[in-house]
């Protein structure tokens, strides 16, 4: 029988290990390996305990019911554990690939591991939030760690610029989010998500405050997920920050923001309301999100077409992927939610994998990052080129890779709920994105190299690449492995 301690164990473990990494850092200042393995073990243990809790959760008669603990602050739903495992996995991938990269580029790694652990713990707190206050604190822990990680190589001007831009715009967007949460509090008189849902169902709300609150929350979260009118920071930040970190910010950060969308949308529009006003609002909000999603996909993919730098290209394409993910929120049915879960997994694997390959072929001080410099990459490095091609095919959404089925679930979810035009836009923008994803593969395989590109010693990054490639392949060939789990939460 599952008790509270076992259900809360992932949160306790990640908190404990991030504090331990901070505390032990000065003790082992000579030998950084100790902290490295400690952080890896911490993430692994948190992932395993989340997996066990998920297993216990599926045994209960109604696995889609969430139970709250700690005075209705922490929820222990299946979706929370699913995202816990996902965030721990992305943390592990980044940890495996970063020591070599940072010792090559910067020489210093103090506090790096604790920042990764703290950002993962922030995301996990978000995943488990049953209260808007806790959700907000989680978002802030995650964002603060991201600002610091973006500027981690502080002798490089671009990195510092990325951190500053990210911090200023992020703090500004946080203002919108807090104001939105305050408005929701004004409308319903509570911050607990289940009570908010109840009061919307029973129609004891101030509808005007609710509308403004929802609008402001959409703005705040769109900033965090880099959705269309608020995506301007993304290319600069992902381009300027250290390459492996850019993978972490764009994949895990985006998945976390989408998860916040799911949590809030399910709380506010989850139950069937008798209130006509809320019903109309629901239709309007979904229309707004659909327009945002369509614009995000088109703008992201079209601007990615003209990029010369591979990090900027992937940054713009990550904006487009936020648009695809948002389709699941627009659909707002079981298939849409579980589609977001599936696509987040696929996206984390392929995006982080692609950035790890870039970090391996990159030379000191951001050299060798132009797309033209990938000419003939396959001649010198057949394995890396093959892995990169797999990630590119998956990002473009071609079968039999995980990216295809993610898009398939999201697109069908949108069609099921009547958003056919959105699906048409999504298909068109996927076609546009083929040009630059496949273009890179053509450059790598069918063009002659100008110079002999060198590749850095990979170290443990090989393990991370193996993990992510295997994930992209397995979930592409057997999507039901993941989908059957994702479905039972809703």
């Amino acid at each position, binding site marked *: 029988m599952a008790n509270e301690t076992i259900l809360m164990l992932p949160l306790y473990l990640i*908190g404990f290990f*991030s*504090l331990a990494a*901070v505390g032990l850092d000065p003790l082992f200042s000579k030998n950084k390996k100790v902290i490295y393995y400690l952080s890896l073990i911490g993430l692994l243990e948190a992932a395993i305990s989340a997996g066990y809790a998920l297993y216990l959760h599926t045994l209960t008669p109604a696995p889609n019911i969430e139970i709250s603990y*700690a*005075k209705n*602050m*922490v929820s222990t739903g299946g979706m929370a554990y699913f995202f816990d495992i996902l965030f721990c996995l992305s943390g592990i991938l980044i940890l495996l690939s970063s020591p070599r990269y940072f010792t090559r580029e*910067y*020489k*210093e790694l*103090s*506090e790096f591991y*604790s*920042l990764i652990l*703290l*950002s993962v*713990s*922030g995301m996990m*707190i978000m995943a488990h939030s049953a*209260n808007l*206050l*806790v959700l907000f*604190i*989680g978002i*802030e*822990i995650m964002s*603060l*760690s991201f*600002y*610091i990680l973006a*500027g*981690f190589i*502080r*002798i490089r001007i671009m990195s510092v610029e990325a*951190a500053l831009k990210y911090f200023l715009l992020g703090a500004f967007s946080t203002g919108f989010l807090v104001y939105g949460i305050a408005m929701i509090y004004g409308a319903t008189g509570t911050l607990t998500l289940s009570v908010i849902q109840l009061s919307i169902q029973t129609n004891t709300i*101030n509808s*005007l*405050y609710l509308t*403004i609150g929802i609008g402001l929350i959409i703005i705040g979260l769109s900033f965090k997920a880099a959705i269309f009118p608020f995506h301007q920071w993304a290319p600069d930040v992902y381009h300027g920050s250290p390459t492996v970190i850019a993978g972490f910010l764009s994949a895990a950060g985006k998945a976390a923001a989408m998860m916040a969308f799911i949590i809030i949308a399910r709380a506010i529009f989850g139950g069937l309301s008798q209130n006509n006003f809320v019903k109309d609002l629901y239709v309007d909000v979904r229309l707004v999100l659909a327009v945002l999603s369509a614009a995000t996909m088109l703008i992201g993919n079209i601007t990615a077409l003209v990029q010369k730098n591979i990090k900027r290209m992937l940054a713009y394409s990550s904006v487009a992927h936020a648009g695809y993910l948002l389709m699941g929120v627009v659909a707002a049915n079981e298939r849409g939610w579980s589609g977001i879960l599936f696509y987040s997994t696929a996206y984390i694997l392929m995006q982080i994998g692609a950035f790890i390959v870039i970090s391996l072929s990159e030379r000191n001080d951001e050299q060798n990052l132009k797309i033209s410099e990938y000419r003939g990459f396959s001649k010198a490095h057949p394995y890396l080129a093959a892995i990169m091609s797999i990630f590119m095919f998956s990002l473009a959404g071609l079968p039999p890779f995980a990216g295809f089925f993610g898009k398939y679930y999201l697109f069908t979810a949108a069609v099921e709920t009547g958003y056919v035009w959105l699906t048409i836009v999504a298909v068109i923008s996927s076609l546009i994105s083929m040009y630059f994803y496949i273009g890179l593969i053509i450059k790598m395989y069918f063009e002659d190299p100008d110079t002999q590109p060198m590749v850095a010693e990979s170290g443990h990054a090989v393990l991370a690449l193996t993990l992510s490639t295997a994930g992209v392949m397995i979930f592409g060939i057997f999507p039901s492995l993941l989908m059957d789990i994702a479905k039972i939460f809703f």
Partner: protein
Amino acid sequence: MSLTFLFFGILAVLAIATAVICVSNKNPVVSAMALVAHFFMLAGLYLTLQAQFIAILQILIYAGAIMVLVIFVIMLLNLGDEEKLREKTKYRKILASLLGIGFIAMLCSVYLGGGLGNKATSPMAITIGAPAALGKELFTNYLFAFEAIALLLLTAIIGAVVLAKRKVD
């Protein structure tokens, strides 16, 4: 019109006035002092809402500690030529002020629609703002959020140390 509402009106007008001075004044030290005055007005507003403890914290932390830091930074940066920082383009200013006026009009319509004036507060409200009640809430119902905030502050401290370290070792 009750006495509380009168106080609220005076404080609100002064708060808006000091905020405008803070934004519009060219001299950074005057701006900072206007901000200090603004924080005092806000503390007064908290008092009219029966939140005594928050009001004291507002003065101690914002008007006291944080504003000292701000003034120190202004002194150390030794800002001389504010003209350079001026916005050159006119149309941006006009567009921004139009949007701002529109937003204020929207907010006014919302709040005026809900009715102004203070609604009757229960006599119990006087104890809610006291430190004892606040502490009780913080360490029972909001314990998890309190602990999560500890992680947040730790992250911020680590960030300050990482980004402000002088040497790369």
